[in-house]
Structure formats: structure tokens, C-alpha cells
């Protein structure tokens, strides 16, 4: 089943939206999990490194304290600070005042901690019981070789990448699993609509052509009226058929654009719809400037006009009027019907929306109008007042 097959019901788009949302949510969750995992791993690696270094630093610290003890006892004779090339150190009193320091940067010392890294060094704090020379805290510092850091990052990137790949692969499999029943249902529906649509054409055409062949003058009044009603019904079905075919197939076929006489086409379509308006006693008032041209596929223009006219009749009141005006670059169709509220206008362009649940039709009309309009850069505007009717403006070349 190819993607282009699932367009009749417009599911292709919503399916894509579903897919994108699923992928978005899934990737977000996967990333969160990976980031969380990486953070924990990183922290563990760091703690592990600090644990190892701690033993070494504790040794240094003891050595320093021994040195301080001697210095404390013999301070009247001897004043050289105990240094060692393996580490740097500093001593602080109980009020956190630095007594002496050989640290790289004595600024970043955190006496409330035990062991930590800062600015490329590892510092270890030891709290003394006897304050030699007033020293309560010794700080011992060595350089952080960052080997653990690079290794941790390498592992995070490597294993994180592999995990991400696995997660994503699993995601695709899951998605296919979840979507396949939906896809099958859509496919079925799609085929059904296409087949039925196709099957509709022959009988409807047969009815319409046969009605045309009847010589209505030879019929009595009653029969003629019945025949007319049959014709109305058949034409309505025919319009619906054409809309369905448009949605199912036409708009995917390359358009046959040419210079189309809008005036002539509009007149022809009004003639066609007059008969449909009759049952509601609707009057048509036209102001059509002859010879208005537009470069467009005439079949599509017919769909656009048909849908606007059909709506103007469908949502009109009994005995109402439909005004149709055509000027160069503008087509206006106005009805005296139920009208719409502001938010209904926006909604109106959405497929399958019906203005009034009582009114017939598929409610796909305005959606088709919108699709055709956007293909040809036509500007469609609706002005409407609840209870007074709607006015649709189609403009081009502006």
C-alpha cells in the first residue's frame, strides 16, 4: 500500500501528524532517559575517580600534618613550611582565614566539603583535632589529569549512540506495529470509497441523460413535477460524486490549466443549480460581466463554483435569494441564509464540517474550495452575519 493510496479520506495527512507526534514524544523520552543515564554514569565515574585519588590525598594530608606538628613545636627556631613536589597545600584556621598556601588558586577552596574537583585540580580537605599553628583545615591539592573525564565522555558518546540507535530502531518497529491495523482500516475504507464512487457514476449519468431525453411538454403537470424532483435528486448525487472524485483522485492528477472563460462557465453552472434551488423557492440574481478570463483547470473551477453555489442554496432559507456577481478578478456569491459566527467561518474550511446538522450534503464543500483556492493562489474571504446570510469573495491576480 503506497502513501498516495490513502488520500481519499485525508488520512494521509493526519497519519503523518500522528507519526510526527509519536516520533517527537518517543525521541524526547529516549533522550531524557539517555541524558539521565549519562548524568548518573558521569557522576559515578567521577566519584570512583575521587575515591581512588582520596587514598593518595589522605596520605599527603597526613604527611603535611606531621610537618605542621613539628613546625608547631619548633616554631621558635624553624619556620619553613612543609612542602612536597607531589602536591600543593594550604592551611586555614577555625575562622576560615588562610594561614599559609602553596595552592594554584586559593580562591576556590570549599572547606565544608571533603573532596572535589575544581578548575582542573582535585582538592582534599581534612579537619584537624589539634590545631597545629592554629590550623583547623588542611587543603591538599593535586592536578586532575582529566583521563577519567575523557574516558567518561567517550563511553557516554559511544554507548549512548549505540543505545540511541537501538531505542530508535525499537521505536520504528513499535510504531509500525501500532500503525498497521490503522493503516489496514484506512486502506479498506479508501478502496471502498473509490469503488463506490466509481460505481455511482454510471447509474447517475444514466438517470440524468434519460431525464434530459424525456420531452417534458408531452407530460401532464403532475408527472413533470415528479420528473423534476428526480432530476434534482440525481443532480445532487452527481455533485457529490464529483466532489468525491475530486478528493479521491483529481487533485492528485496534473491540472489541465488553460485560459478559461469564467463568465461562460459560471452561467452554465448557475443554470445547472437553478433547478436545485427551485425546490426551496430560491431566486437567483446575477451580475455577470462577460468575457472574464482566468488561467485555471476548468474542471477545478467548476468544482469551486459548484461548491459555493451548492452551499448558498443549502444554507439558504426557503424563498431566499442567491446573489452572484462576477467582475474581472472577483467573484462574489451571497446568500440570505443562516449565516455563521466568526469561529464557524474558520471551522468552515475544515473538512466534514457541516454548518447545521439539519442541512444535507457532505460538508466537504468549503474544504474543496480552500484546496483549489490555495492551488491557484485565489484569495477566499467569507463575511457573515448570524441569521442574515453569508457572502463569499473569491479574488485573484491581486
Amino acid at each position, binding site marked *: 500500500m503506497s502513501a498516495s493510496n490513502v488520500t481519499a479520506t485525508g488520512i494521509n495527512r493526519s497519519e503523518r501528524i500522528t507519526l510526527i507526534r509519536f516520533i517527537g514524544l518517543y525521541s524526547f523520552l529516549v533522550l531524557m532517559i539517555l541524558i539521565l543515564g549519562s548524568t548518573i554514569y558521569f557522576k559515578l565515574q567521577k566519584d570512583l575517580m575521587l575515591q581512588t585519588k582520596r587514598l593518595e590525598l589522605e596520605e599527603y594530608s597526613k604527611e603535611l600534618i606531621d610537618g605542621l606538628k613539628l613546625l608547631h613545636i619548633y616554631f621558635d627556631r624553624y619556620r619553613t613550611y612543609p612542602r612536597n613536589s607531589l602536591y600543593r597545600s594550604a592551611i586555614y584556621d*577555625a*575562622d576560615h582565614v588562610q594561614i599559609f598556601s602553596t595552592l594554584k588558586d586559593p580562591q576556590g577552596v570549599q572547606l565544608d566539603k571533603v573532596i572535589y574537583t575544581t578548575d582542573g585540580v582535585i582538592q582534599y580537605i581534612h579537619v584537624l583535632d*589539634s*590545631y597545629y599553628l*592554629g590550623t583547623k583545615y588542611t587543603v591538599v591539592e593535586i592536578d586532575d589529569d582529566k583521563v577519567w573525564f575523557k574516558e567518561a565522555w567517550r563511553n557516554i558518546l559511544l554507548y549512548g549512540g549505540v543505545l540511541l540507535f537501538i531505542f530508535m530502531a525499537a521505536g520504528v518497529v513499535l510504531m509500525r506495529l501500532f500503525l498497521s491495523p490503522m493503516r489496514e482500516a484506512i486502506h479498506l475504507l479508501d478502496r471502498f470509497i473509490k469503488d463506490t464512487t466509481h460505481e455511482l457514476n454510471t447509474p447517475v449519468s444514466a438517470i440524468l441523460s434519460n431525464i434530459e431525453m424525456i420531452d417534458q411538454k408531452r407530460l401532464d403537470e403532475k408527472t413533470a413535477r415528479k420528473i423534476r424532483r428526480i432530476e434534482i435528486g440525481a443532480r445532487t448525487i452527481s455533485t457529490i460524486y464529483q466532489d468525491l472524485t475530486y478528493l479521491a483522485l483529481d487533485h492528485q492528477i496534473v491540472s489541465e490549466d488553460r485560459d478559461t472563460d469564467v463568465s461562460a462557465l459560471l452561467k452554465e453552472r448557475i443554470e445547472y443549480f437553478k433547478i436545485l434551488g427551485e425546490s426551496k423557492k430560491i431566486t437567483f440574481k446575477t451580475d455577470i460581466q462577460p468575457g472574464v478570463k482566468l488561467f485555471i483547470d476548468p474542471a477545478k473551477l467548476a468544482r469551486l463554483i459548484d461548491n459555493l453555489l451548492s452551499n448558498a442554496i443549502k444554507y439558504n432559507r426557503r424563498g431566499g435569494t442567491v446573489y452572484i456577481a462576477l467582475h474581472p478578478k472577483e467573484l462574489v456569491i451571497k446568500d440570505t441564509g443562516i449565516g455563521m459566527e466568526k469561529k464557524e467561518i474558520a471551522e468552515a474550511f475544515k473538512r466534514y464540517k457541516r454548518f447545521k446538522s439539519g442541512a444535507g450534503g457532505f460538508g466537504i464543500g468549503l474544504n474543496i474550495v480552500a484546496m483549489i483556492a490555495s492551488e491557484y493562489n485565489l484569495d477566499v474571504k467569507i463575511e457573515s452575519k448570524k441569521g442574515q446570510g453569508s457572502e463569499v469573495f473569491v479574488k485573484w491576480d491581486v
Partner: protein
Amino acid sequence: MGRIAVTILLIFSALQGSGMNIYERNCVKCHENLPVSLDKFFFNYLLKYSSERQVKQALRNYLKHPRRKASLATEELLERYGIMPKSNLSDEELRKAIDIYWDKYKVFGKIE
């Protein structure tokens, strides 16, 4: 009148000239008779109280209220010389003496 002024001046300059400040006049004078020097006491206080603020506070407390329990001196010393007598200096003089004492023996800036 002039004579008195001259005498006072002389006494002052004598005191100044010999470099006798409150610490030397009071503490050192008396401690000269003790076998344990004042700097040993100082380092004991440093060992126990660590920072300048705490050392000075402990000294002030001890000098104003010398008690056996609070003493850092050895038993022998206390047996032989008894508890240090309660200081007869005023609060201000005591503060000055302790400041001088601290400055004389503190380790800040002396470690090399």
C-alpha cells in the same frame, strides 16, 4: 609648675625609651619568674583555639577569671606556682596587652 611638667615629660620619655608597653610592664614582668615562657603558653592556646578571634577570647576569659579547670598549663606548674592571679588591668588595658601578645607570637606572615 614648669618643674612638674618637666618631671612628667621625663617619666614618660623614660617609659617610652625603655619600650615598656602595657604587655611588657604587666605580663612579662611577672612571667619572668616562671620557668615556662609566654610563647609556650601562646602556642598551647593556638593549638586549642586555632583562630585569632577564639584565642583572644579564651585569653581574655582566662585572665579575667583564672580557673584550674580552664587552665592549659601542666599540673606541676600549677602545683608549684598556683593559679595565675586575677588580672588587675582594666578591660581596655587587657585588650591592648592581649593584642600585643598576639602580634608578638602569631604565625601569620612568619611561615616561609
